[in-house]
């Protein structure tokens, strides 16, 4: 057995190495038209961090370097706030080397027993102020506008300590590929933000440097001098503008980026324009790289009064069929959520109802940390349980699970309305069904007396409940105050996502979005969609690869389509096609519905090798799902000819109808010669590495 496990591990490592060495960029090596979108790219530009900016963030030198009022002291290497104070409660850091306008990651360890501690990333402003009410490691990513931050108590709190404070710049944010707005000015920095623009990476050989720009004074009384990449406007008393009058920046479907530094002693009205959009600049710093998808041919510097030197650090251009959505409410949302519960580590919260029981925190969990809680009975003759009502859970095979350990009671009843229940013996992991049985159940031994117990059933999950039990065969009995069981890390998810680890969820927008959880664009099935500029395929062959989670089984839903539909030279992939729980690989006006059905919610890697010159409708589509060829029920053959010149619509037909309800992981569309079997397999494996479908 050990040998087999070792061999499987070696194979898994070999597969990972093969995937790691492959890049979809290789599919576009000959400049084939197409697109490549990757929501997981957020990890690339949100991970690299610059040097630590906070000295003595671990308080190893007491409060040296901190502006701490009298209620703060250092105890056991942590900054401790005196309980109950509000006056004189500030702990601040000034002038720590932060450059204004930078996106930074702020991290610290907080403990707090009651009340809230306020964190201000800018000492002088309430912007982005956070009220901290729960213990844990806090990680914030913020665009900061000041060289200071502080903690203080606005109302009385107890047990507040802070340690390991860190501020580091996110150095790769300038190469972000997702933006919250359609113009490309505000990068997506976290899950649950809208995606108004996602850049096509198929042309990404790095940014194309836009050199040869010529800057010319166009208005005002300031004196303008240009030296290399430096433009100086001196002594302006009326608004003075310098405009780029030549240079090689194209104005087609691409995105321009400008990184600029502005230095001045005294000036007003300092602005930089990029493709027609103005942005006020901060003094003496390199501001965040700003991109713009606008097609306006205007790059400009403005100074209303004073003298300013602008240094153009980067001015470049990223070509490609970038997909955007101008309507705010119609933007898909970047997400990584799996666990449908909330407050999964805070059972004192009102989201969890305690019935004839109380909960206590701070017990050692299966991982050796102190995140376990205890479900403690009261003395009533009654049910003793904790329960939560999840929302938005699909009708599917759902798995409700939680880690448990015997306390004074050796049994637990895990129950879910709609799922059924089972009694678990917490000494040996055995179980017996409740009168309403689940479809499946199990217990995984985690060691040290801990078990992850789970039940599954194909139904809508209602209340998720955990009972203490005295005999393992009943859930209502005479309680003993304080007796009970230990528990931690509850989780409710579709069963076919059970391979993913437990996911901490505080709220719908605050959850563990670590790399274990695939990133996806969440399309709401109502009005979300993206569209590219016009693509010129110039080929009668196209390859489509997509990681997809389908949440609905009925009605045509458009995943991706070339053109607006119902024409002679397009293709489309729908998920599903009608009431059949299938996928439809459509070509021209003919359907290509899969023979096998895929009831939602289901996660799949879809691929199609469209070839309009092939002999049959099946061969014209060459559909594959999860790396295997699939047969089509209907495969209406199409006539020969190149694919049409048109935009690519994602998530909705023509941005107006047939909305897709589900998740989109990477999407690759390539127009060009048929790929080899090895290329297809490599690409599917790469997409699956970002999707987790098989």
């Amino acid at each position: 057995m050990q040998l087999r496990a070792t061999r499987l591990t070696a194979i898994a490592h070999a597969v990972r190495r093969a995937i790691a060495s492959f890049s979809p960029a290789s599919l576009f090596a000959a400049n084939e038209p197409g697109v490549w979108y990757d929501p997981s790219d957020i990890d690339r530009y949100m991970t690299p961090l610059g040097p630590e900016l906070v000295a003595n963030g671990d308080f190893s030198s007491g409060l040296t370097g901190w502006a701490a009022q009298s209620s703060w002291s250092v105890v056991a290497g942590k900054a401790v706030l005196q309980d109950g104070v509000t006056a004189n409660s500030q702990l601040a850091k000034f002038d720590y080397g932060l450059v204004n306008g930078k996106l930074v990651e702020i991290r610290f360890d907080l403990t707090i027993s009651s009340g809230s501690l306020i964190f201000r990333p800018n000492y002088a402003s309430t912007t982005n102020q956070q009220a901290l009410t729960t213990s844990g490691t806090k990680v914030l990513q913020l665009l900061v506008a000041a060289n200071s931050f502080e903690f203080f108590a606005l109302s009385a709190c107890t047990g507040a300590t802070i340690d390991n404070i860190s501020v580091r710049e996110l150095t790769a944010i300038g190469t972000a590929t997702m933006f919250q707005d359609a113009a490309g000015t505000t990068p997506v920095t976290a899950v649950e933000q809208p995606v108004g623009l996602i850049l096509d990476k198929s042309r990404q050989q790095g940014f194309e440097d836009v050199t040869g720009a010529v800057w010319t004074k166009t208005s005002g009384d300031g004196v303008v001098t240009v030296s290399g990449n430096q433009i100086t406007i001196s002594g302006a008393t009326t608004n003075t503008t310098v405009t780029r009058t030549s240079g090689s920046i194209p104005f087609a479907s691409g995105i321009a980026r400008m990184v600029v530094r502005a230095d001045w002693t005294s000036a007003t009205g300092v602005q930089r324009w990029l493709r027609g959009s103005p942005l006020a600049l901060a003094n003496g710093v390199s501001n965040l790289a700003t991109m713009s998808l606008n097609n306006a041919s205007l790059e400009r510097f403005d100074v209303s009064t004073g003298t300013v030197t602008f240094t153009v650090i980067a001015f470049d251009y990223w070509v490609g069929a970038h997909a955007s959505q101008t309507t705010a409410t119609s933007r898909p949302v970047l997400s990584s959520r799996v666990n449908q519960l909330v407050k999964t580590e805070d059972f004192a919260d009102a989201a969890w109802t305690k019935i004839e029981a109380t909960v206590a925190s701070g017990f050692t969990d299966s991982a050796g940390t102190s995140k376990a809680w205890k479900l403690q009975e009261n003395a009533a003759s009654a049910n003793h349980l904790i329960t939560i009502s999840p929302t938005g859970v699909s009708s599917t095979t759902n798995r409700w699970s939680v880690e448990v350990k015997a306390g004074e009671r050796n049994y637990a009843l895990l129950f879910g309305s709609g799922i059924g229940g089972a009694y678990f013996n917490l000494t040996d992991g055995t179980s017996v069904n409740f009168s309403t049985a689940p479809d499946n159940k199990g217990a995984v031994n985690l060691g040290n007396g801990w078990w992850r117990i789970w039940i599954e059933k194909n139904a809508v999950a209602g209340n998720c409940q955990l009972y203490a039990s005295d005999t393992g065969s009943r859930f209502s009995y005479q309680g003993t105050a304080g007796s009970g069981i230990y528990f931690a890390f509850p989780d409710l998810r579709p069963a076919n996502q059970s391979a993913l680890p437990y996911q901490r969820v505080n709220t719908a927008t605050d959850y563990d979005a670590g790399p274990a959880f695939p990133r996806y664009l969440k399309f709401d099935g109502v009005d979300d969609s993206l569209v590219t500029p016009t693509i010129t395929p110039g080929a009668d062959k196209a390859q489509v690869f997509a990681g997809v989670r389908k949440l609905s089984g009925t009605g045509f839903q458009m995943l991706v389509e070339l053109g607006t539909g119902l024409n002679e030279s397009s293709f489309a992939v729908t998920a599903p096609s009608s009431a059949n729980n299938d996928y439809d690989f459509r070509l021209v006006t003919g359907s290509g519905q899969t023979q096998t059905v895929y009831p939602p919610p289901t996660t799949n890697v879809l691929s199609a090798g469209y070839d309009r010159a092939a002999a049959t409708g099946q061969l014209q589509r060459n559909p594959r799902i999860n790396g295997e060829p699939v047969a089509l029920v209907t495969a209406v053959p199409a006539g020969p000819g190149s694919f049409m010149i048109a935009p690519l619509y994602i998530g909705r037909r023509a941005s107006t109808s047939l909305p897709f309800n589900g998740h989109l992981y990477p999407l690759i569309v390539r127009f060009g010669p048929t790929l080899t079997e090895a290329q297809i397999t490599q690409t599917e494996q790469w997409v699956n590495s970002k999707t987790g479908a098989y």
Partner: protein
Amino acid sequence: MDAFRTLILPAAVTPLAREIAATLSPGGIGMWTTGLSPTGAEPATHYISTGLISPEFAFMVPDQTWEQGEDGAWTQTGSTPGNPEAVHAACNTAGLEVTLAQVLAVFDAADVTEQEPFTALGRLGLVLAQPNTEP
């Protein structure tokens, strides 16, 4: 921080609401293009937009809160009126000729909540209106 809203309008006020939204913000262009009806058949009796909107936009529009009882019935538990005067003033400043009464009519007819879209549709007894034929 953007705010999540589901905004449903009767078809009769939708054209004006589209104009107002497009006037208030570039991100408001293209709202309410998804039709709704009680049976799913066209023509649409209502239109829906759902997703994240800016705090400024959220401040201006009305919203309602609802709770569902054990019997499944929905009860409205609260509402905020929005800021029709500010909307009216912003429209006029931007050159959209609209009266305060017209803005109020849109606001009165609007169903705006923080509910997920399919929850709101279920409460109102509406579904997406789709063409009957295969696309």
